[in-house]
């Protein structure tokens, strides 16, 4: 175990050192990445100023969804960049994966250590700010139950997105080009989960409930945290399914 972590740190360390070399580029990169999240959020704030609510959710409540998803996706993207289907597909095509397979170390560990992108910090940081804003303005009634469930939901989200990345990555063994379609599940899933699920058409919602259980990861836990009613009316209490769905996909 010590050996594995040591090795992982060493692989990551190389990545970090090489990226820090171009300091100005790293700075603009982090800034640009953070700006993506923040500009989308500012746009959202403008929109809510005009519209008020979406399906009964106000800006602070949507910010809770958005902040959680952005932070979790950012953390995942940092840890699992090696499995980013675009990047992984390229490695497979160039035959670099074969190189890794020859080495006498666990392949998952090597892929995880093969890419670590510092600029994701920008996204995580902005996600946290948005989440803080949301929690601050919502005045959630924090019970011990909620306090302890929040980190679990977060971990489940990270595992869920990570699982999707790995699924997408393995698909590239069969496809020639890295396929953009998987982005529908990863980036599309993240975008979708940033809003209350009740706004989507039925077919889409079913797909993201039964095929990809995205709905259990953010929408239902959020309903619990924010004490909201569920207009979709599942026949059972789905608020606590996040860990099952998240780690199941993983």
């Amino acid at each position, binding site marked *: 175990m010590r050996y594995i972590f040591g090795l992982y740190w060493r692989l990551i360390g190389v990545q970090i050192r090489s990226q820090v070399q*171009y300091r*100005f*580029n*790293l*700075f*603009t*990169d*982090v*800034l*640009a*990445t953070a*700006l*993506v999240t923040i*500009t*989308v959020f*500012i*746009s959202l704030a*403008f*929109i809510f*100023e*005009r*519209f008020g*609510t*979406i*399906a009964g959710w106000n800006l602070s409540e949507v910010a809770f969804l958005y902040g959680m998803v952005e932070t979790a996706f950012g953390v995942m993207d940092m840890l699992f960049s090696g499995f980013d289907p675009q990047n992984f597909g390229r490695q497979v095509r160039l035959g670099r994966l074969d190189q890794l397979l020859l080495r006498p170390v666990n392949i998952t560990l090597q892929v995880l250590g093969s890419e670590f992108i510092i*600029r994701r910090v920008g996204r995580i940081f902005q996600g946290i700010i948005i989440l803080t804003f949301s929690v601050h303005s919502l005045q959630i009634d924090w019970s011990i139950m909620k306090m302890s469930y929040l980190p679990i939901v977060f971990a489940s989200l990270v595992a869920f997105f990570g699982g999707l990345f790995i699924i997408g990555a393995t698909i590239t063994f069969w*496809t*020639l*080009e890295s*396929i*953009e*379609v998987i*982005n*529908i599940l990863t980036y*599309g899933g993240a*975008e*979708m989960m940033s*809003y*209350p699920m*009740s*706004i*989507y*058409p039925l077919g*889409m919602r079913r797909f993201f409930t039964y095929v990809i259980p995205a709905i259990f990861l953010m929408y239902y836990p959020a309903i619990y945290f924010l004490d909201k009613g569920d207009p979709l009316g599942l026949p059972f209490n789905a608020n606590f399914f996040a860990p099952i769905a998240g780690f199941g996909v993983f």
Partner: protein
Amino acid sequence: MRVFWELTRRSFQRQVTYRAATIAGLLTNFFFGMLRASVLIGLYGQREVVAGIDIREAVTYTGVSQAVIGLLSLFSWVELMNTVYTGAVASDLIKPMSYYRFWLAQDLGRAVAQFGFRAVPIMIGYALVFDITYPHSLEQWLALAIVVVMAWLISFSFRFLINLAAFWMPNATGIIRFGFVLMSFFSGFIMPLRFFPEWFVRLSSFTPFPYMVNTVVEVYLGLVSGRGLMLALFAQIIWAIVLILVGKLVLRAGIRRLVILGG
């Protein structure tokens, strides 16, 4: 001029060769369009008209803005930067053709392919799934065509300009990404600019960005016409000229700096 069209044609062919990638991109753009349409429908709720845009037009807006992603290359474009780092820029520069036109021709081919195989299918898909609006007169179609071409020209000259950063920096991805973020924020791609506060709209009108996406959308929806249309077109022309001139100036300075070893 013959070389120009030849380059355009080659670039077009390169784009259409990867059929699976084209379809995948199409599906992705369409899916995101559906998401964005759902969000707007959810926001509208019982409302009929907001900021002069009714719900049908709002849904159409998501279609048009998704349709132009490929055409205007809204998310990323680092082809020129890459040639600087691989050294291919050297052989491009000694070609008996202006460097600017060399890239313009290729980007035109790319844009035409993206128009035919992305923009049009997305709009057809939208027409099948949603109840969308269409330009309702010949003049409006004509205006749309002109505005789209100008939007492409502005987009190209802007992308060309930020890619030139590669002549100065060992890694320009950060600064280029920065440019694209500004572009999507001010262009009205995230949401129609009309929904934003007035001060923001005024601020954005001092940048070239709204003349890429927002103008195209507004002309398509018929939100601007007559004098407003003329003004928008005028602004597009001015920005295209400014960006091309600045691009050429910066290019000249960049080439002077360029040192290529080996041979």
